[in-house]
């Protein structure tokens, strides 16, 4: 008998078309239930049929083929075309993962507190309440929990600082995830909101901060809706508000504040100003938020992932938690695997796992037998790891020693169809647009860096340009006010270090080996041409000539490299080099 059928309805699922699937299943009178994101982006939309004794997971279910699935379900048969696995653990994607924070993601309905409680939710808070606040902080210190936002600072130490302060103080959950290629915070907020709230409540008990704020971007409407619903439910169940769980004097008020969509507001001082209703500009430190933060009161800011870990530490116990990870860094890290990789998605891996395993065992390597080129970590603030770096274990310090950062955890894979100059250009254009404009190096420097990179990608660069880029990039790193500026040149410096040859090729040979930089490409016609004339018809500048049924020729002087002929040719007769 079918117990229930779950459909992944996080943002990733919905954008792949899970909503109509859900509606169809509902129309068919099946016991369908909404769940969050299980992490397998490459298989979305995902439908799981849960029976008395077994499970069947179906992937890539669309509006079109959902009818077949319904038929099969009604006939109590397995739908072979869409079937993925009986259990996620049997999939290569999950074999090397260690899901302790994301254990509920894609399993429970994030809108129902009963589901969370059933999975052992709020047992952590109860455990914490049986200790004194100082003991709670000691647990976190003993667990050696480090911030998952990127810098990896000790969470326990941060808590200690504000726990000592008297009077009003604030806890903030940083959910302003803005890096290109990072969506793990969104996944967690949408799929297991109570875990974050519970973590913050434990933090409130430990630090005696009576007010908490979850700051997230307005571009995450579903995360906001889910979180708000969860907060409301927590209030109703005496898990937020006054005298939480009957503990006299333990009050915690929690609310959500929406950011207006500025990457820089992920920086804590800029975020604090944004919450205060001011322009999201970073401030010089000191004073640190722990001293003078929100409304000039002591404030503790932790990432979504960190709060999730707080709950997990108390849930699985210190002993179990400390078994996971490396000497320096305990626990797991939630990562986003994207780019030119077969299996994309949100994954949770233990620290110390070889980076190679993430890319090849979990990700399945590059698609279509293409060659792996680099792994970009840390988004626009990070750098790249080449093939030889992949032997290293995943760790904050190791990543730093390799010239990149862990960052929030976005891992973007590139292959031989990616041009590293363009990658650097892309990230620089991102930081340049997202720079708040306050300090000179970031505001003016990133603009000039972008201009010089554009010159190179258009074939107008010289070796002098390269020198200037290097010099200016180091200057921006050295003198910018906040992390955004200080790390903005990282992709440039890193790609220059590992892929200088590509830059030189753009400059000297005026060629882009990956075939990405439009200005450096040339289109030619080879002997496959049958003279159909399709290309000459589509060419907007009449650069293609040739008689019918005879080989055509592209006039290179006229060609504007729009690529229309390449798209339209049915005989693979047009070459792009």
């Amino acid at each position, binding site marked *: 008998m079918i117990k229930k059928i779950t459909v992944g309805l996080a943002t990733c699922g919905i954008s792949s078309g899970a909503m109509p699937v859900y509606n169809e299943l509902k129309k068919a009178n099946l016991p369908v239930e909404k769940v969050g994101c299980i992490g397998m982006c490459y298989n979305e939309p995902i439908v799981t049929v849960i029976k008395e004794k077994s499970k069947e997971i179906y992937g890539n279910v669309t509006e079109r083929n959902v009818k077949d699935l319904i038929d099969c379900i009604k006939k109590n048969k397995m739908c072979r075309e869409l079937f993925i696995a009986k259990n996620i653990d049997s999939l290569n994607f999950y074999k090397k993962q260690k899901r302790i924070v994301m254990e509920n993601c894609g399993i429970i309905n994030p809108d129902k507190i009963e589901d969370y409680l059933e999975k052992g939710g709020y047992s952590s808070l109860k455990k914490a309440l049986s200790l004194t606040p100082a003991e709670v902080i000691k647990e976190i210190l003993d667990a050696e929990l480090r911030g998952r936002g990127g810098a990896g600072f000790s969470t326990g130490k941060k808590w200690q600082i504000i726990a000592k302060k008297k009077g009003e103080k604030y806890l903030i959950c940083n959910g302003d995830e803005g890096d290109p290629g990072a969506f793990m915070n969104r996944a967690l907020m949408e799929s297991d909101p109570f875990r974050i709230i519970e973590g913050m409540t434990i933090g409130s008990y430990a630090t005696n901060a009576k007010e908490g704020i979850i700051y997230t971007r307005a571009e995450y409407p579903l995360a906001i809706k889910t979180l708000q619903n969860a907060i409301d439910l927590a209030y109703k169940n005496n898990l937020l508000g006054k005298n939480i769980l009957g503990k006299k004097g333990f009050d915690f008020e929690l609310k959500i504040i929406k950011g207006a969509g500025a990457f820089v507001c992920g920086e804590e001082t800029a975020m604090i100003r944004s919450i205060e209703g001011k322009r999201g500009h970073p401030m010089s430190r000191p004073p640190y938020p722990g001293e003078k933060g929100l409304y000039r009161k002591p404030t503790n800011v932790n990432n979504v992932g960190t709060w999730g870990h707080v709950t997990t530490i108390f849930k699985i116990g210190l002993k179990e938690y400390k078994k996971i990870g490396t000497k320096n860094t305990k626990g797991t890290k939630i990562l986003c695997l994207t780019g030119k990789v077969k299996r994309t998605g949100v994954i949770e891996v233990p620290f110390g796992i070889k980076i190679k395993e993430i890319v090849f065992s979990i990700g399945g390597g590059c698609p279509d037998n293409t060659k792996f080129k680099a792994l970009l970590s840390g988004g626009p603030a990070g750098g790249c790891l080449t093939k030889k770096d992949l032997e290293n274990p995943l760790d904050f310090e190791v990543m730093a020693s390799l010239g990149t950062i862990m960052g929030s955890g976005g891992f973007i894979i590139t292959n031989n169809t990616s041009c590293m100059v363009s990658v650097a250009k892309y990230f620089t254009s991102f930081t340049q647009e*997202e720079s708040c404009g*306050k300090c000179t190096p970031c505001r003016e420097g990133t*603009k000039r860096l972008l201009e010089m990179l554009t010159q190179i990608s258009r074939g107008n660069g010289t070796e002098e340009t390269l020198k200037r880029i290097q010099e200016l990039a180091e*200057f921006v790193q050295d*003198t910018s006010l906040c992390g955004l500026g200080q790390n903005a040149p990282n992709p440039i410096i890193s790609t220059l270090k590992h892929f200088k040859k590509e830059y030189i090729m753009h400059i000297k040979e005026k060629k882009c080996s990956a075939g990405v930089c439009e200005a450096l490409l040339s289109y030619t016609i080879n002997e496959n041409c049958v003279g159909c004339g399709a290309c000459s018809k589509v060419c907007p500048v009449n650069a293609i000539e040739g008689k019918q049924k005879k080989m055509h020729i592209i006039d290179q002087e006229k060609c504007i490299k729009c690529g229309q002929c390449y798209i339209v040719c049915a005989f693979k007769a047009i070459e792009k080099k």
Partner: protein
Amino acid sequence: MKKAKKQNSEKIKFILDNKEVEGKRGEYLLDVAKRHNIEIPHICTNERLERIGSCRLCVVEIQGMKRLAPSCSTYIREGMVVNTRSPRVLKARRINIELLLANHDRDCLTCNQNLNCKLQRYSEDLLIHKIRYEGEKRKEKKDKSSISIWRDNEKCILCEQCTRVCNGIQTVYAIGKQNRGFDMKVAPPLGLNMEKSNCVNCGQCVIVCPTGALSENSDIEEVTNALNSGKFLVAQTAPSIRATLGECFNMKPGTVVTGKMVAALKAIGFDKVFSTDFAADITIVEEATEFVKRFKENRDLPMITTCCPAWIKFAEQFYFEQLNHMSSCRSPQAMLASLVKTYYAKKINKKPKDIIVVDIMPCTAKKFEIQRDEFKGEADYVLTTVELAKLIKQYNIDFVNLEKEEFDNPLGESTGAGTIFGKTGGVMEAALRTAADYLTKKDLRKIDYKQIRGFGTIKEGSIKLAGKEIKVCAVHTLGEARKIMEDIREGNCAYHFVEIMACYGGCIGGGGQPRYDDIENLKQRQKAIIDNDKKTKIRKSHLNPSVIKIYKEYIGKPGQKRAHRLLHTKYKKRCYL
């Protein structure tokens, strides 16, 4: 409290450019360095403004720190080793200036602030001979809509001093930061121009601007035309000009140049040079009369002075419901202009339209004041101190070596009380000298009211006269004025008489004065004014023989019919954003 004090005086030793130096805990590196004769270049830092560390020009190398640190916002620490001129630091500063110049129109030779520009100075100091970064530049039209202040965003380097003054200190909120990254700019909100904004024309932004992005709306050309028009030209000089004009000719701050100023104006071609101080004496007579009347009737108290046109516009905009507290007296400038066109015109047998009155003022807001409907046809032009210096230079006058000359009569004789109008607290002190005599009907010996001198933001005082206590207070900057007005609105204001000046330090720090680097400079100007007062024989306005004479001859009794027509005015409600 005691502990904190002890900490503040704690001595800290550290190495600064290979020398051991000493500072106190909580001091910034930039300030300690300055005390030890090391002038670290800085653009965005100003003693009076909150430090934001945005220009990054003041970076220094601190041993053990990964990045260069901004000395303006880095606290000194015991044993730190600082290098303010290492090759790395100098290179960073050069690139910084180069970046600023790359986005600047660089037309120094035709710039309003040529030779008066920090960017220009540092470009020279740091040997910038070439700007290596050529690319997109900020393109914007000059905003010449305001009668008082011109804004040229192509010259703006976004140090945010103007916005910090306008919003933080003046609370006028006429301008703010807009857009982000490379597109960031400073402008009035909603795409409005300066004329339509909240701007009260105080010019405090002009005086802090390090470049030519802000300058006064110049009337030099109009005045030179008037000088050659064959009409009868009268100049009046405000009390504070004598203490600041010398600075424009590289004289020491605080040099009093009254005689040279009069001589220069005569050399330029003014037929008569009168002193606004004379009108200041009349103002006191009128104001003291008005105050004594209000005090006796206990009506519309506190009474607030109205010499400052920026303050008047501020009150009309933000506190139009409380305009009854304003004294109805015109500003001294408007009184003198009105007397020239009536009393003096009759005396020399000329039609008012054949006389041109040029006001030499410390103030950009006076340019706005003379165009108010109430004063149309009285004063014709306003030149600021800076503009007068430019005019003197244009007329090939060797100012420093000029022989002294005296003001013309009958509108030139003044008392020490008139002179101290040039600094904060001066009007109040002068008024008290007269009011005390009026109330006691004696010639009191007490002349100095030291409690309302200095740079304190709200300077309170109280005097006991004829068994009654009069509580007074002198306020400078509009942010402080706002507090007083809020108190009045709430009914919490215990004062009877309040002096308000919009600019920091009063008129000696006016928007039309030469730019000053530190408050020490301003203190010298203030000292000059006080010394000037001390040296005069008559130090009470109502004892000025010329004033007594003009009342007898022409005006009649203070506060009566003719006095009202000539010397008083009305205020109106204005809108604000």
